[in-house]
């Protein structure tokens, strides 16, 4: 599973956590090579379905081998038609999966203190990350935001005693982020939808802390074909381009994302014309 491919997964198990279900898929091969921040793209319905498109899912826990080769866990939102379909598949149902996809998080060369910020299901993207960071001697601190972070919280507790979750205590993602940013934090890792990450990205911009953001955007083909996942990102050359989250992301350096301009094509973007809002 180290290279992206299309494979048939088998549903091994499902357990529910709030509005989400954790679904274990067996891959038939070694899945431990999937890197933190990568995702799979799941065909969420059969031939008679009115749902045409695949759904992206963060890779949570991944094991090297189980009863049927390696397994991965994904966290499916039961309130969405795609997630509900996946969760409803009985044990040993077969599911068409493409992955692992996308550029993963990069890890710091030297041990340091990292703040991991996760929203809702996207906390799943932090699970392998925390494991890898801790195994490199990093200290990890967690900020878990949203109603349904139980899956991420489980990992958090394994790797960190510094966990803040949002059960009622937090006024805004912005304030919560600020409250966790003391001098020891050198790297922030975040994961969530573009809307969720916007205030986090904005507050961190120019703060001198490295920020890597794993973004959920509308994502259709997962293979650089459709350009439907594009968001405005500044390049090292200073030029803003509409960049595909599925292949150049989903992990971006936070300081390069045009957080204020998400959902638009900024006027100074390469190829933008004035007519575009």
């Amino acid at each position, binding site marked *: 599973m180290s290279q992206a491919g299309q494979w048939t997964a088998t549903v091994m198990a499902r357990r529910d956590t709030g509005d989400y279900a954790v679904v274990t898929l067996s891959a038939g091969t070694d899945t431990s090579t999937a890197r933190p921040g990568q995702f799979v793209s799941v065909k969420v319905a059969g031939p008679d379905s009115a749902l045409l498109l*695949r759904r992206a899912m963060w890779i949570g826990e991944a094991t090297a081998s189980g009863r049927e080769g390696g397994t991965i866990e994904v966290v499916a939102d039961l309130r969405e038609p795609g997630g509900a379909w996946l969760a409803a598949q009985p044990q040993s149902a077969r599911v*068409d999966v493409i992955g692992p996809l996308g550029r993963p998080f990069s890890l710091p060369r030297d041990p340091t203190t990292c703040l991991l910020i996760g929203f809702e299901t996207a906390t799943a993207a932090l699970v392998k990350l925390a494991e890898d960071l801790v195994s490199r001697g990093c200290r990890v601190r967690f900020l878990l935001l949203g109603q349904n972070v139980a899956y991420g919280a489980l990992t958090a507790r394994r790797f960190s005693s510094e966990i803040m979750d949002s059960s009622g205590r937090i006024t805004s993602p912005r304030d919560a982020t600020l409250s966790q940013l003391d001098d020891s934090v050198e790297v922030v890792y975040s994961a969530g939808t573009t809307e969720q990450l916007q205030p986090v990205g904005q507050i961190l911009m120019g703060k001198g802390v490295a920020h890597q953001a794993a973004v959920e955007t509308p994502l259709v083909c997962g293979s650089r*074909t459709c350009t*439907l996942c594009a968001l405005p990102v500044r390049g090292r050359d200073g030029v803003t381009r509409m960049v595909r989250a599925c292949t150049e992301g989903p992990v971006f350096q936070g300081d390069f994302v045009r957080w204020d301009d998400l*959902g638009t094509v900024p006027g100074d973007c390469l*190829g933008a014309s004035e007519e575009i809002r």
Partner: protein
Amino acid sequence: MTEDVVLAGQRFANRVFAAAGCAGTGRELPAQANLAGLGAVITRSITPEARAGLAAPRIAETPSGLINALGLPGPGIEGFLADELPWLVDHGAAVIVSIAAEQAADYARLAQRLRQVEGVIAVEINLSNPVTESGRLPAAMDAGLAGGIVHAVRRNTAAGTPVFAKLSGDTTDIVSVARACVGAGADGVSLINAVRGMGIDAATGKPALGAWTGGLSGPAIKPIALRAVWEVHAALPDLPIIASGGVRTGTDAAEMMMAGASAVSVGTALLSDPTAGIRVREELAGIAARREGGLQGLLGCAHQEVTA
């Protein structure tokens, strides 16, 4: 059974193509997609200049369909020729270049630029882009506008390179637009582009697409595409038609051929399954093999049964 076919003087290895914009420029596809195994790859529509595209969201799912409003993002013709076309050619794809612009003169310039370019076996004119001449109506909605653009492109394209005009299924009278295109020199038509549609996100009370309206594609529009193919084939039985609109299986492709298509292109299905093109090709060949007359025998046969 041979799968190859000659359309408007150009030979294609088989009748199943990748629809414009749905195999990207090719390089993005995993190896399984096997572009060289398709009859042709129609590129996304290439514009005179680089374009960033429209604001997000650019897509929404609908029952058995998809609405998108991309705004033709891409590197522009020069970027395409420098970078994307050579890659496609290297990988064995038979390339039809789709072109789009905002006025006939720019279409002409694009055609001119493609003249003599190695590896371009045909040109498809995307007429669903709003054109400035019309107060921003797509040219495909107006026989006069469409004919004008086709004329400009045909005049600037090498004689051996066929030109296909891509029309809309939600125009009042597609036959009159097709006739105008043929009159202006089109060697064939591609039917149909995505249908004008819209989504509303009930949770937010806002349009689902950043551009408000967009194009509806996928199985939902297959009946509209079949009707368009049927009508144009009935009126212009010798005109090569490349059919698209909801083709997902070999059966869908066979239906398009029975209605009058010479070839089919697979669009939305490629987005969720990069191997859909090859699978459709194999299934179509299987269906044809089980009938008398092979693939060519499918072409327009639903009309024969009806007029017999």
